[in-house]
């Protein structure tokens, strides 16, 4: 080892922070294909490898499809693996995503959230990862650079748990978090080693005892294997919560388990969001609370598995739930988070009858200023009084009228 990584608390770029955190997890194999706005992460990691600062094997590939395929093979052989991608790159991995999850390989991948073409656009929304919600990957959405660092380490602990054995996406907002410079406590190698045990796969490829991974199964077995993935997803709920608490006792920082809440006790209006928007919403909640508005915030940290039980508990006594979706499930008129909360409310078996308002915001990098959120809350107030919500709407369209 010749090169040295930074350590301690300092102002670094979000991309450096996640590259550093991934390095601290000692991945055996890293493979990624550069794509904006993920490039700084893989540049930093390949620099670490070139400098001899980390012992990982860095596999150069010609596409994202190959990057993830290389990790599927490596992970099946028992290696701890890391990748990062975004947008079209993630879409190119689509087929391999199913394989990684179906083969139960705990790969960890940072998704630097970016919109999907067309029109081509390199800026942030959640369309890329939300579109992969059915692939069997755990999806964690994070709020700031520090949570990104800390959640990357937690992701290995969760995914590699033998009861889970599933791949994990850690989703960060492109540019907003990948290109921000802010204070971050970089993790100490010894402490990470203590927190994160070595990867011991349930089963691994072994030339002495040849086995076939991801083999062909006929209708006699296929459905049962899919059910096993769902069971593992279900098991991951507790593990995500446990990992967050274990991290707290080791490092003193906690961001919630499957969800986090902010001033939700007794709140009439509950805002729901994922990712960096949550930070802005905290400021808005503080501001409106001072003005006497009964508003709280529910952050969805795990979108997969979807934490419907936790959400229902929080919204049970609210007068209106306001979901801010940075994605649009075209043809439904609303974002996926809105749809899933509505679905969960309906079959909850309880008598929770709270109106849900969906707002599609911030697509393709459209900024979400405080004023936009305040206008949304003003609308929510009228719904809180009437108890009747309408269809979801696109917020802040500039060149079209709705």
């Amino acid at each position, binding site marked *: 080892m010749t090169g040295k990584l930074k350590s301690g608390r300092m102002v670094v770029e979000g991309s450096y922070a996640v590259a550093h955190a991934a390095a601290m997890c000692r991945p055996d194999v890293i493979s990624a294909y550069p794509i904006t706005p993920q490039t700084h992460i893989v540049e930093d990691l390949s620099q670490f490898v070139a400098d001899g600062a980390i012992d990982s094997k860095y596999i150069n590939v010609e596409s994202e499809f190959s990057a993830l395929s290389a990790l599927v093979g490596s992970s099946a052989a028992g290696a701890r693996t890391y990748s990062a991608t975004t947008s079209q790159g993630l879409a190119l991995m689509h087929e391999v995503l199913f394989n990684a999850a*179906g*083969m*139960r390989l705990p790969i960890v991948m940072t998704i630097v959230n970016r919109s999907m073409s067309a029109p081509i656009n390199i800026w942030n929304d959640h369309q890329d990862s939300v579109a992969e919600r059915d692939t069997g990957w755990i999806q964690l959405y994070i709020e700031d650079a520090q949570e990104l660092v800390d959640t990357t380490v937690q992701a290995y602990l969760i995914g590699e748990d033998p009861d889970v*054995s599933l791949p994990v996406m850690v989703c960060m907002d492109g540019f907003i978090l990948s290109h921000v410079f802010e204070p971050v406590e970089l993790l100490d190698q010894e402490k990470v080693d203590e927190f994160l045990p070595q990867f011991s796969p*349930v*089963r691994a490829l072994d030339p002495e005892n*040849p*086995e*076939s*991974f*991801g*083999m062909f*199964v006929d209708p006699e*077995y296929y459905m*049962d*294997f899919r059910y*096993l993935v769902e069971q*593992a997803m279900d098991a991951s709920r507790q593990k995500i919560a446990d990992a967050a608490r274990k991290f707290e006792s080791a490092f003193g920082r906690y961001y919630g388990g499957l969800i986090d809440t902010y001033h939700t006790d007794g709140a009439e209006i509950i805002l729901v969001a994922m990712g960096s928007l949550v930070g802005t919403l905290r400021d808005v909640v503080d501001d409106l609370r001072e003005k006497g508005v009964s508003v709280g915030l529910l952050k969805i940290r795990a979108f997969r598995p979807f934490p419907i039980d936790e959400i229902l508990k929080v919204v049970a006594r609210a007068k209106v739930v306001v979901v801010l979706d940075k994605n649009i499930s075209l043809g439904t008129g609303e974002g996926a988070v809105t749809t899933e909360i509505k679905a969960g409310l309906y079959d909850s078996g309880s008598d929770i009858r709270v109106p849900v308002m969906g707002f599609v915001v911030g697509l393709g990098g459209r900024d979400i200023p405080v004023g936009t959120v305040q206008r949304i809350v003003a609308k929510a107030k009228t719904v809180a009084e009437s108890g009747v919500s309408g269809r979801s709407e696109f917020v802040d369209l500039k060149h079209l009228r709705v």
Partner: protein
Amino acid sequence: MTLPYAPIGKPGSSVANKTGGWRIFIPVFNAELCNGCGTCETFCPEGIVHKIEGGDTFIADYDYCKGCGICARECPKDAITMELEEK
């Protein structure tokens, strides 16, 4: 039966799967005509044509020969004939 946590199993082997039974026509190799060129070995999709031990002419492994007839068609010496196999 209990399933493993993931679709992992003993790899199958084509050695265990004797495909000779699929055959209707059987290639009969005539060593008199064979010049040992090896074309049949090259073309056999099953990879089961080989040189006779200690000799220069070729023969199929009938445990696996599916009777497709490619070897007979490709043989430049017409040394292979496809004959209806009695079962």
